[in-house]
């Protein structure tokens, strides 16, 4: 009986011990993925910002500029790309909509970002774009990979349509969550005018004819929860200028926008809660279950060996012999 029990325990011990690395290194990369149909919005604000008044072509102080960012997973597009890519792909259609204090549109920047659902590596396919222009992204955008490392990453900048390093600047605690802080500085760079301008009748082509160009610089800051790779907070010190051309009269340049953009408080709380719950799910697959299964396997193996040893103990009585009853003599 003891030998049978020890064999069953041994089978379970091997089962749980094998499950531990299989879960961490085989199942996790295949199961932990960004959902293809995710929808998320985010509100960022720049208080006491500087904004160009297109009527007077002069920069003025405004109490607040709001940026509404929407990410929508396009499931149909991702399934189409997956057929040729041979891996799980996420297609994010995004819109950064900038609104002035009067509620009018300042700018809007649509993007299509295609990436590997687990590794976050960009996938290049037809449709990858920024403001309708085809782009070939290198590195990451919006989110870091699961198990973010303490190193610099290449981060795609939608305004310049180029990638540049975003530097790891240390580990911090943000609202009780351990985060990695990343920072990227984009130096003054000439960038395209958006396809849709804030003033009716003005197009990028008509502005280009005046010789005026658009320049941009930013310092981008992210506080990233490393287990999920999700930013829990972001800030941007963003400046835009129009330079040269007849549009500015006798001026060399004019500020089109300058502001310190920060996430709105209610969105910070929402994001922190969301990231914390997703962190638990990821840790379940990468830490809690693998270590738990390993400990359980070791325990069951010890129990199995113990039972086996006891069943072989020499002092144990031999099993009773079943003897045939002797016939009763007459």
């Amino acid at each position, binding site marked *: 009986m003891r*030998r049978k029990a020890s*064999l*069953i325990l*041994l*089978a*379970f*011990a*091997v*089962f*749980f011990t*094998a*499950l531990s690395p*299989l*879960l961490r290194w*085989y*199942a996790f990369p*295949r*199961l932990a*993925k960004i*959902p*293809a*149909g*995710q*929808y998320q*919005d985010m*509100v960022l604000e720049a208080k006491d910002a500087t904004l160009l008044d297109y009527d007077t072509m002069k920069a003025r102080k405004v109490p607040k500029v*709001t940026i*509404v960012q*929407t990410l*929508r*997973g*396009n*499931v*149909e597009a*991702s*399934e189409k790309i997956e057929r040729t890519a041979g891996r*799980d792909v996420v297609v994010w*259609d*995004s*819109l950064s*909509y900038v*609104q002035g204090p009067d509620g009018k*549109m300042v700018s*809007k920047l*649509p993007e299509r970002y295609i990436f590997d659902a687990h590794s976050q590596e960009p996938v290049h396919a037809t449709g990858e774009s920024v403001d309708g222009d085809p782009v070939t992204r290198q590195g990451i955008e919006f989110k870091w990979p699961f198990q973010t490392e303490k190193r610099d990453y290449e981060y795609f900048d939608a305004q310049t349509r180029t990638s540049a390093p975003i530097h790891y600047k240390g580990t911090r605690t943000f609202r009780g969550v351990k985060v990695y802080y990343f920072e990227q500085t984009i130096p003054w760079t000439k960038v395209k005018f958006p396809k849709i301008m804030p003033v009716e009748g003005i197009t990028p082509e008509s502005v280009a004819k005046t010789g005026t160009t658009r320049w941009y610089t930013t310092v981008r800051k992210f506080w990233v929860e490393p287990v999920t790779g999700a930013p829990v907070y972001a800030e941007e010190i963003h400046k835009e200028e129009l330079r040269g051309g007849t549009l500015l009269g006798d001026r060399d340049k004019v500020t089109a926008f300058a502001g310190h953009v920060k996430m709105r408080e*209610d*969105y910070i709380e*929402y*994001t922190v809660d969301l990231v914390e719950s997703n962190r638990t799910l990821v840790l379940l697959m990468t830490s809690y279950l693998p270590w738990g299964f390993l400990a359980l396997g070791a325990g069951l193996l010890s129990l199995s060996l113990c039972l*086996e040893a006891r069943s072989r103990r020499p002092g144990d009585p031999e099993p009773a012999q079943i003897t045939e009853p002797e016939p009763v003599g007459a």
Partner: protein
Amino acid sequence: MRALIAATAGLAVALALVLTITAMGSPAGSTSPKPMLTTVPAHP
């Protein structure tokens, strides 16, 4: 010999379980009908 069979059985079940779960994968879901926002939402 019986110990080897028991260990192999445990390993085989673990492999089968993990392969089945990963083969099933996660549901793709569907594209959200919600629009790309051009107004400021009141709350998340």
